[in-house]
């Protein structure tokens, strides 16, 4: 096993190209996700007002929309059609339509209706605009109510209780500002590293088969396929676990992302996830006879992992067969346990099921080794 390990190191030294490219790729993705979403939540989203009323009320609404951070009025249109077209051109994400005579109706106590249109094809921008603009609409109503109550002589302390009898404060646990930065970075970057470890392991095994150097490998491993596989995996296990450590250090250190739990536990989790992913890669490589078809399947499985770990669309909302299917992805366990450690500060008492599940993946390695052995025995000349 040691000899296979050294052989692999020599092979990496002779052809360091892919390791370098992948490391640069990982670094670039880190920088990409860190800079792309650095605002935390999108700010100043462009919205518009269709002002058919041209009154004090509509001007005040524009003013109030502009006073918030999340949205910004970029245009005032004279007709519904113009605003709709601007939305379809991607210039705005939402607009308020204030019909003619709205202000007069307010003054006459006729309870006029104003309409908010949001574009839900862009889920994030659409729902942020929706949340912000409905609040502003309600507040506009509140402002009128306040005037009325004041004129009736209700004292200021009681007005608040009358206009807003209930207040609801929602606190997201571990990510108090609801920042996308934290949300995306903490899963996507480790996810990419874990899956890269899997892909590269699969790739180097595939290369042995394609270059027909399997025989040399088996000779070095003294005919033991399991030793051959473990020896080949090991350099990448070490390298990618180190990268995980480095990324975590940067994220939870200088970037100040919250980390409530224990560091050793996070490292143990990272190591187990890298190994589990590598074993899955070895298994796929061993089971599919054509190495480049196997490689395509491995990358398809890897890409699917981001969906199946359930960070964007929760697994509980998927159909039952897919919930079961998600158990086959090491990234799923990493995601569940990482969230417990960093956001909830939970200890091993809470995440042992995930750690144990990850420990089952090395069993796949045995199957992969048996398959590799069979291929070698069938074509010992290669």
């Amino acid at each position: 096993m040691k000899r296979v390990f050294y052989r692999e190191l020599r092979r990496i030294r002779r052809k360091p190209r892919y390791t370098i490219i992948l490391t640069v790729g990982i670094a670039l993705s880190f920088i990409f996700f860190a800079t792309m979403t650095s605002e935390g939540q999108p700010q100043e989203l462009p919205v518009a007002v269709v002002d058919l009323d041209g009154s004090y009320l509509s001007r005040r609404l524009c003013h109030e929309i502009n006073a918030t951070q999340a949205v910004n009025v970029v245009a005032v249109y004279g007709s519904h059609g113009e605003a709709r077209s601007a939305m379809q051109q991607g210039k705005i994400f939402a607009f308020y339509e204030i019909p003619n005579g709205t202000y007069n109706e307010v003054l006459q106590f006729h309870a006029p209706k104003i309409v908010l249109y949001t574009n839900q094809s862009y889920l994030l921008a659409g729902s942020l605009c929706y949340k912000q603009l409905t609040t502003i609409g309600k507040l506009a109503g509140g402002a009128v109510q306040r005037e009325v109550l004041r004129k009736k002589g209700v004292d200021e302390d009681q007005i608040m209780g009358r206009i807003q009898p209930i207040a609801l404060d929602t606190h997201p646990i571990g990510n108090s500002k609801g920042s996308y930065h934290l949300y995306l970075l903490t899963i996507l970057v480790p996810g990419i590293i874990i899956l890269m470890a899997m892909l590269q392991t699969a790739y180097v095994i595939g290369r042995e088969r394609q270059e027909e150097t399997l025989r040399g490998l088996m000779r070095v491993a003294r005919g033991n396929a399991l030793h051959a596989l473990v020896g080949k995996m090991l350099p990448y296990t070490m390298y990618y676990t180190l990268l995980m450590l480095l990324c975590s250090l940067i994220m939870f250190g200088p970037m100040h992302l919250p980390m409530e739990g224990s560091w050793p536990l996070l490292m143990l989790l990272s190591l187990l996830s890298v190994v589990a992913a590598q074993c899955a890669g070895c298994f796929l490589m061993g089971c599919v006879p054509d190495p480049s078809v196997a490689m395509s399947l491995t990358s398809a499985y890897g890409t699917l992992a981001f969906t199946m770990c359930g960070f964007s669309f929760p697994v509980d909302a998927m159909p039952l067969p897919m919930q079961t299917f998600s158990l086959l992805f090491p990234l799923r366990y990493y995601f569940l346990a990482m969230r417990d450690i960093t956001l909830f500060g939970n200890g091993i008492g809470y995440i042992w099921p995930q750690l144990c599940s990850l420990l089952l993946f090395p069993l796949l390695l045995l199957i992969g080794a048996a398959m590799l052995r069979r291929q070698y025995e069938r074509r010992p000349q290669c």
Partner: protein
Amino acid sequence: MLKHLFRTLVETWEVLANEVRRVFLDKTTVVIFFLATAVYPPLYYYIYHREVLQEMPVAVVELSRGENSKRFIHKLDATPELAVAYRCATLAEGEELINRHQARAVYIIPADYDDRLARGETARITCFSDISSFLYYKNAMFGGSVVMLDEMHTIEMAHHTDAGLDHHSARIQVQPIEVEDVKLYNPSGGYASYFIPALLLLVIHQTLFFGICVLCGDASERHRSLQVIPTHLGSFRSIRIVTLGRLLCFLLIYIPIALFDLWILPRIFGLPQLGSAIDICLLLLPFLLATICFSMTIGNLFSQQRMSTLLCCLFFSVILFFLSGLVWPQPNMPRFWLAASYLFPSTPGIQGYVRIASMGATLAEVRHEYLALWLQTGFYFLTANISLYFIRKFKPQTDH
């Protein structure tokens, strides 16, 4: 002149036929081109077909047990987003439930809730929500605020009717301006309607890219001239013909695939299809051309081995999806990344397709994207020629 044209056509046909043969003889490209494009979209649709998270289990810590708090809990349970699965008497119980992820959110009704309401003061409810997926947070927040607004309405109405107002006047007092909201294009805010249209385009983009790169890598690996250039052709002309022939080959293969993915599948899935079919086809043509030329350029330059580009598929696919501007809105992207996003045909392709198909835009309303795709086609056609020229010049090769 005519004879020259005829010769060019025949030679282009030769290259095309040869390339088609290579595609169908290579197991990997068959898997990528035909299997992936047929399996990925239905699989993703199946994963997301429930669109939204419903009846998310939440816990309520009932420190006050008056009439108002009971009604609040009852209304929470009645929302489609939330289901009150646990009612706890202490904070610790609620905390444990959320730490164990049995409840995705916990609403705490304070001990003075009913008293404050009776005194006409503002009563505060606190909610702690899991945010490991944003949909949990969204459900907790939207479900909670719908109930809050409804309760506010009920309580205020009671105040006014107690003061002797009739129902109609009380309503106007409580709600002097009515806000109606219309959610356009995707009324339920569903995940499949949002994600699948972009995914369809991305699948076409990525399968073309990796398929072409595998073919280029295969040729490079066997030390053949890259695209088997007929030796009797002059150097510059041959390169143009080879690029053109291959372009046509992939275009021919992908027209039926694109029609299947973008025409038949969305109808089977019942996704919103507001745009005109002609506009979609007009957009697809430059999208396919630009993607093929882009892939040939990258394939010629970087693909040395069959499997090597597949290594990059992971971060490439994820990053392209983020660059498309469907997740993080384009106006909020850093300028650098926004500019970089237009290097890839997927960005204008996804933006254009989503706006036409899901939002019913006309081709004129996506003219920027349309123009960008044609510019990319021209640019990458040139680079595909240039890269092939350099490869032929600087790489040793043996024509078979």
